[in-house]
């Protein structure tokens, strides 16, 4: 009897000790902040299966509701439990053309993982890590089968911009049997995934591989084509495209209009990151494009792009990198993981502080800046407490590089050339939130050009909705 009781006790104890959430292996902070290789190293198959087993396989999965592209999350996780990793990737592809990207850059904590039932009492299932695992497995093994392309419809669609929303539209519509051509202004495809997000967060080979999957499905790509000037939207329609999707992103950097902002050494985050990522200036002189290497770097802003800039500066050899942000820690808009990684890598957060002006030497090079301390007042229209300057709190900061990362606006190049596409007062395209339809017949838009600067996955969600609407249009009518 005694033995029996003990056994029951032991079994109960085992049941109580739940498997903890998998911890992603990473390069050590003091190693990785000197190289551009990817920070998280990926889960092993054993880790992935153990983590996948934590999923409750809910009948009504809240995580799927939290996903802007409605990935069948319990479905792909179940395949990982079964050891069918390639099958897991195929399940992902049904709803998401870019799983290896999303597994790396989605803000899971406010989407799928934020809704996970396991997370109510403990740590949620590491859905992002698992997505990355399955997609990486498929890419590296080449085992996963591509989705089946529907019979050709004979309809042609032009997708303008090869960022996350454009790639999603292209992926969805090629599967539905339409001819799809992507027009990209740069010489490389991927949009913000290649010019903006750094190699250490999203290796460019992975973006390349996701794009090549689309090409294998039949998507055509025309690079070096700046729609709006090389060709206009109207000309694309005249050339025989039945529908045009505009996903050109938020391609016009904001500056702060402060004295000294045009000194050498003050960059927009767009320029700093484009030089480093797209043009591979971190490999200078192997690549010809240089980028300024600061010793004392200040990044203005606290979003994901600011974190990317700060961590890039560290890797390019900066002694000190400061994030200067006018609100408090709570309001920092970056993903939790980015803030965590930045802090681990020695980025200093200077909060409740605003820049006032920049100082330079006779050669026009930046030598320092003046900052002002702030305090939080009443909530503003965004619901966040409004930062107010503290009088007389100005102080000087030595710096030789400043990256202005306070957002980006709509680039007017395409819309100026096609005035029939209606804009809001900020120059963003007005599009029906449910369908992505613009005010011009046959033209859809989505992503940052519509919403202003947002996330990869929201752009993809908009692309998904527009693709559905375009498909309806091509098969049923406007």
């Amino acid at each position, binding site marked *: 009897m005694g033995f029996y009781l003990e056994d029951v006790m032991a079994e109960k104890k085992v049941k109580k000790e739940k498997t903890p959430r998998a911890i992603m292996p990473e390069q050590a902070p003091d190693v990785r902040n000197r190289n551009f290789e990817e920070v998280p190293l990926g889960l092993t198959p054993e880790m992935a299966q153990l983590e996948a087993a934590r999923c409750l396989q809910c009948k009504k999965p809240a995580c799927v509701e939290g996903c802007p592209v409605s990935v069948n999350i319990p479905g792909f996780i179940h395949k990982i439990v079964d050891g069918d990793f390639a099958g897991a990737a195929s399940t992902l592809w049904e709803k998401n053309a870019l799983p290896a990207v999303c597994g790396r850059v989605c803000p899971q904590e406010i989407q799928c993982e934020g809704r996970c039932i396991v997370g109510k009492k403990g740590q949620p299932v590491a859905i992002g890590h698992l997505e990355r695992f399955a997609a990486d497995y498929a890419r590296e093994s080449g085992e996963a089968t591509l989705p089946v392309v529907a019979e050709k419809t004979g309809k042609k669609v032009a997708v303008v911009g090869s960022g996350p929303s454009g790639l999603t539209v292209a992926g969805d519509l090629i599967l539905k049997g339409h001819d799809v051509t992507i027009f990209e*202004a*740069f*010489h490389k495809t991927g949009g913000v995934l290649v010019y903006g997000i750094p190699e250490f967060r999203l290796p460019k080979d992975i973006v390349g591989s996701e794009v090549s999957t689309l090409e294998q499905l039949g998507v055509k790509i025309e*690079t*070096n*084509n*700046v729609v709006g*000037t*090389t*060709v206009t939207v109207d000309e694309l329609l005249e050339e025989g495209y039945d529908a045009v999707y505009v996903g050109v992103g938020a*391609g*016009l*950097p904001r*500056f702060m*209009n402060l004295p000294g*902002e*045009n000194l*050498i050494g003050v*960059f*927009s985050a*767009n*320029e700093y990151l*484009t*030089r480093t990522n797209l*043009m*591979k200036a971190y490999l*200078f*002189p*192997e*690549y*010809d*494009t*240089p980028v*300024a290497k600061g010793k004392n770097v200040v990044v203005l802003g606290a979003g994901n792009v600011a974190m990317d800039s700060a961590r890039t500066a560290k890797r390019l050899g900066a002694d000190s990198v400061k994030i200067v942000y006018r609100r408090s820690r709570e309001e920092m808009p970056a993903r939790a993981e980015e803030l965590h990684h930045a802090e681990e890598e020695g980025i200093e957060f200077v909060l409740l502080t605003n820049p006032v002006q920049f100082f330079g030497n006779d*050669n*026009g*090079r930046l030598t320092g800046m003046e900052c002002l301390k702030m305090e939080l007042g009443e909530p503003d229209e965004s619901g966040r407490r409004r930062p107010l300057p503290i009088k007389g709190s100005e102080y000087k900061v030595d710096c030789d590089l400043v990256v202005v990362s306070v957002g980006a606006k709509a*680039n*007017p*190049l395409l819309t100026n050339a096609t005035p029939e596409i209606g804009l809001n007062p900020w120059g963003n395209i007005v599009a029906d939130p449910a369908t992505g339809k613009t005010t011009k017949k046959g033209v859809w838009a989505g992503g940052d050009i519509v919403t202003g600067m947002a996330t990869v996955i929201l752009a993809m969600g908009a692309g998904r909705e527009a693709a559905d609407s375009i498909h309806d249009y091509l098969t049923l009518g406007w």
Partner: protein
Amino acid sequence: MFKIVHREEMAQGTIVLNEIEAPRIAGKAKPGQFVILQVNETGERIPLTMADVDPEKGTITIIYMIVGKSTTLFGNMDVGQEYYAVIGPLGKATHLEKKGKVVCVGGGTGIAVLHPIARGLKEVGNEVITILGSRNKDLLILEDKMAKASDTLHICTDDGSQGHHGFVTDVLKDVLAKEDISLVVAIGPVPMMKFVSMITKEKNVETLVSLNPIMVDGTGMCGGCRVTVGGETKFACVDGPEFDGHNVDYDELSKRLQAYQSEEKFSMDNCQCK
């Protein structure tokens, strides 16, 4: 794509002309607009204002001085070879309208940029007086073409080997004193454009200059080409490249052009391309 169909050396090989297949761009480009070229995947993106376009042939022409690694690599390419990337047409086209008498001032490879603009100004009915400057007569380019595009052509050389012995500004002052000029277009080195603008400002003559600051994308995306015009920050790539010469902060532009001087020197010194 982007195959070189014709190549010419000028100014004793220091300046090179490339005519490049780029049908989409050639079908669209207008005087004053530029392209961005990349020689290969590891190359820099270099903005160059087009010297000519041929919509029927589907070609564009660029003329560049060999000054650093990128232009050396450009210059090393033969007919039949291809640029890795050419994008455009970028920037705003020159507003060509009948003004009456206009003066076109060009220096260095700026003459190549000036040529289609002078030709366009003449085509719409202006009397075009052209003033070209170079260090000496061997470095002067496009003299014949500019003569055709102009009603009057003045040449100035620093060493007096051809035409006026001295600067374009000397001749410009003369012309402005004698003639009733309604527009001056000045394209060349920054100091030339600065001094031309100083002279025309005194006389209150409208002046256009074409700026070529450091750029990356050329579509307004990076803001690297910021110039101060009339106290406001402008992006040369989308707001320009032409601006009211009287309002440009030339000193800031000159300094910003030096931003990567040491990297450029390093690249050139370590390049196997010479």
